[in-house]
Each structure stands twice: as C-alpha cells, then as structure tokens.
C-alpha cells in the first residue's frame, strides 16, 4: 500500500511561501516524478512528504491516515538522498541493515533480508567493503538497498542520479525503472532533468515556483502542454516558442512548435532562414536556424542532413502539431 494525498500543503520559510497551498494525489504503485527548474520547491515538497520538514499548513495523508505530524521514521517511507548519505564508517552490509537494526529486527532475519537486497542490486561481492571503496553507481545501489530492506510504503528519491556520469545515469535509470516494475511500490522521484522524467514516470508533476503547472503522463505533457512553461520544459531539445506577428497571424500571443515538427527544405517553404550551428549526432541533426523576426529556431532533421553554416534553408511548421498560447500563457 502506498497512497499519498496532499491537501492544501503549504510551506513557508519566514514570510516566503516556498510552496503555496498545493493538492496532489499519488496512487498506490505509481511512479511519480516531480520535475522543475532548480529552486522550484520540488525537493522541499519531497522533504515535506518524508517528514524532514514540517508543513506550515495543510495535511499529508498516507494510506488515508493523517501523517502530517508523524515523525519521519513512523511514516513507513524510505528515502534515497542525492549525496547517497551512506554511513562512511560502516561496511555495506551494516549500512543496509542499519534501518533493520534500529527497528529491532532479529539479526538472522536482518541478514536474510540484506542478502536478498544485495542479490537484487548485484552487491553481494561488495558487502564487506566500506562506502569509500565503492564507485558512484555502487554507492547509489547501496543507498537503494538501504531503502529496500525496510519494505516501505513508498520510496522517495531526491535527485539520485545527479552525481553520476552520463553513461552510468542511463544505466541506473533503467535499473530504477526495473526495480519499480519488480517491487510495484509507489515511488516519488525528484529531478530537474526532463529526460529522466519522461523515461521513468507513470505520472509527471511539473512544478514551477512551488505551484503545480501540470500533472499527467509523459506523453500527455508532450502532446498537450497546459501552458508555456510546461511546453518549454518538457521535450528535448526545447520547443521553439515564438511571439510577435507570426503568433498574432495565428490568433495567439505565443505559438510553440517542437524541433521535430518542422519540415525542412532547401527549395521552398513557409519561413526562410540561414543555418547557424548544426549539431550532427548521427541519428539526428539539430539545426539552429536564424529566421528574420523570430528567435533562433531549433529544427530536428532525421539522420544525417548535409547543410552547413550560412546555408539558406526553408522551414514549414506542421500546422496540426502547433501549440497556441494566450496572453495568460495558457494553451488555447
């Protein structure tokens, strides 16, 4: 079980409302990702759920029971920290079994649980090492192991992959997703990386300045961003947001078109521009095109696309994939 409900949860530091009243339902077994730029309050929100911060107002329900004033240890949640927060003087085995020891679990039972967790996480041969002797990815797994053995109602991850290098990050992303499919436990995951959000989440919560901008499945957010902020935040490379006469022509304040929804041609098209930087990735080519009267547009061309700096190029946005936003920033 792991249903978490936030009702009007508010957090103020002094007079500054980091999180204005916020409502959110997290269903049992869901993988929910909080995503947003740094300083948007996503980590604070996670810490409120964990109980490491006190709410200023509102209530947090875990499985229907009010947990607002319950101390962190009693909430039945496990957290994986950004710095891993392993205990440096304890071996991996002791690190993982620490919560069990604190809970007074029988040592034989604890050993069995630690061995199981180690097997799941490929840590069996490292159990007697100290955290200092492990690589970043292994430390990450120890931190997850420490969370697993508690058999929590929900896992909380606070930017767990931000200290890993790019290749390892992709690996761990897969491992965490797989873990979620095996355990089927609720997971709440905080990140500033929209790629992590898109690839892992069942449900993404986009936060900005403490407010929820939009909640939905990754593809809902991709297809129908509710506002300019979500449109600009979800998707890589970022959606092109255009204001001015071109937007007014289509009856909107801002129009948005994703790089992959612009057709390229060297002969004819709606907009004419000059190629600036082109990024050749092999599988894709990203062109940064300067069109007069518009910001630099990013365009994705499939495969290898042979244009160079200074070349003239014609762009045609796919009309049905265009997003229109009103003066209030909301989608029309």
């Amino acid at each position: 079980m792991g249903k978490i409900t936030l009702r009007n949860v508010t957090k103020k530091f002094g007079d500054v409302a980091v999180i204005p009243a916020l409502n959110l339902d997290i269903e049992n077994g869901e993988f929910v990702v909080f995503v947003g730029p740094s300083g948007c309050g996503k980590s604070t929100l996670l810490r409120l759920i964990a109980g490491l911060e006190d709410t200023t107002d509102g209530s947090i329900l875990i499985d229907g029971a009010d947990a607002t004033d319950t101390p962190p240890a009693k909430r039945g949640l496990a957290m994986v920290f950004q710095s891993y927060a392993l205990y440096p003087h304890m071996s991996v085995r002791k690190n993982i079994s620490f919560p069990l020891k604190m809970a007074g679990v029988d040592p034989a039972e604890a050993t069995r649980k630690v061995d199981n967790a180690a097997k799941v996480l490929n840590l069996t041969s490292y159990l007697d090492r100290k955290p200092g002797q492990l690589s970043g990815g292994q430390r990450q797994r120890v931190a997850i192991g420490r969370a697993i053995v508690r058999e929590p109602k929900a896992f909380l991850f606070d930017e767990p992959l931000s200290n890993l290098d790019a290749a390892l990050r992709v690996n761990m992303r897969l491992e965490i997703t797989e873990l979620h499919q095996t355990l089927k436990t609720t997971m709440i995951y905080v990140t500033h990386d929209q790629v992590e959000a898109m690839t892992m989440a069942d449900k993404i919560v986009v936060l900005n300045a403490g407010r929820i901008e939009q909640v939905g499945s990754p593809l809902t957010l991709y297809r129908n961003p509710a506002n300019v902020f979500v449109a600009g935040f979800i998707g890589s490379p970022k959606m092109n947001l255009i204001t001015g006469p071109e937007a007014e022509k289509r009856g909107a304040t801002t129009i948005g078109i994703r790089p992959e929804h612009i057709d390229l041609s060297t002969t004819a098209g709606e907009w004419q521009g000059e190629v600036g930087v082109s990024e050749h990735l092999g599988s894709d080519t990203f062109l940064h095109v300067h069109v007069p009267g518009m910001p630099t547009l990013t365009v994705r061309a499939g495969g290898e696309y042979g244009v160079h700096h200074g070349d003239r190029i014609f762009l045609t946005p796919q009309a049905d994939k265009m997003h229109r936003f009103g003066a209030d920033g909301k989608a029309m």
Partner: protein
Amino acid sequence: MATQHSRTAARLMISPAVILLLLWMIVPLSMTLYFSFLRYNLLMPGMETWAGFDNYYYFLTDPAFFSALSNTIILVVGVLLITVIGGVALALLLDQPFWGQGVVRVLVIAPFFVMPTVSALVWKNMFMNPVNGMFAHIAKALGLQPFDFLSHAPLASIILIVAWQWLPFATLILLTALQSLDREQQEAAEMDGASVFARFIYLTVPHLTRAVTVVVLIQTIFLLGVFAEILVTTNGGPGTASTNITYLVYAQSLLNYDVGGGSAGGIVAVILANIVAIFLMRMIGKNLDA
C-alpha cells in the same frame, strides 16, 4: 622545476634554517646529556666531577620519582578525560542554534587565551581559597565547612585548573568536526528510525574519532609539561602529592641546586615522553589514515 640544479639550489637555501633548528635542538640536548653524567652542584661551582650513572641511579630510586610518575599520568589522563567528554558535550550544545550563538562561542574560547600562571592564581586566590574563595563563600552560605582544595585535594585541584584551560581547545576542535557532519546522513538515519541517542552513538561518535585523536595527541604533548599551574598553586606539595616529572626536575636542579640530578631527570622525562609519543603515534596513525 625539479632539475638537478634547482634541487641543489633549494637544498642550499633551506640549509640555514635547518642547521639553525638542528643546533637549537642538539646543543641543549647534548649539554643536558653531558651534565647528567656529572656531579654538578650549583653550591659548589667549578667542582664538577664525572659521576657516571649515579645521577640516574639516585633519580630513579628516589621515592619522589614514582609518585611524580603516577601524578603525571593521573594529571594527563584526568585532564584528557574531562576535556574530551566535556568538550563533546559543550560542542553538542554550541552546535544547536540559539540566540547569541556568536558571543557565547567567543566566551567559551576565552579561557584558552588566559596565561596559565594567571588562571592558576585566579583559581587559587579567588575560587579555591578556604577563607576568601568563592567556593568557601558558597560552602558557608550553605552552612558547610569550607574545603581547602589545594591542601586536601591538590592533584585534583590542579587537574581541574588545567582542564578548565584546555576545555575550550577541545571544544573548538570538536565543534568544527561536528559542523562537518553531513546533514543528509543524519536525515537518512532519522528516516531509518534512529533516535537522537542512536544517531549520536552510530553517526556522531564515529565521525568525531578523528578530531578526538587530534585533541588527545596535542593535549598530551602539552600536558606532560604542565609546570606553571603547579608552581603558583601548590609548589608540588603537600609533600609530593602534586609533583609531576617536570616539577620534580625543576625541584631537583633549582631548589636542590643539583644540576646533574636535574639533567638526569630531564633525560628520563625525554625518554618517557618519547615512549608515550610512539604509542600515541601508533594508535593515532591508524585513525588518521582512513
């Protein structure tokens, strides 16, 4: 630039400093060593004769030596215990956020800046004096007999004075160590269900071992040579109740005018200090490695 040439130049340039330091150390040491084999009494100057190991024999068989040895050990261990335990407690307190934290921290460190002679005199005359001391006043106010600290518990009183001086040092080092304890680790332990007490035992104490090691090492070096506090309070007495090795060497050479015996005592003290240093380094080297 580690060319042969620059290395030679470097050696040449540091040699004055090295030679000066070497002389500074070697000359007094070898003179002490030389004196320790002489029958050298200040009352009979110019009458020095070779004494062989007699000075060592008399110093080491002197009953005062054994009481001085045990006093030294009790003094060092006693002060270390008080400062480490008290230092951890104070550091934990000072680490809590409270109003006026900055001022309080400065005040806590203040005793370290008071000269040993001065602080010992203040303690002797203003606190421990059986007639005018504050403790005597308190005792009288409670209707009790004033306690004459320096004559009835001389060593304990000196331990108290020295510990008061060194407590700020221990507190300071332990406080900085405490502040470097990772917050996320504590939060992780909190989520793991560890109580405040368990977090102290399993996180804080292991984290502090290194700082405690440093405190023990540095304090031991200084505590083996405690002298001023004894000189201005008890003069090593009553009898030899508060005489440590350093004070015994002083008494031997300057109160008994026996430079030879005092030098022998000095060499014994150097050897003992080195034995302690070797053990400490062994113990501590392991702790500092990790």
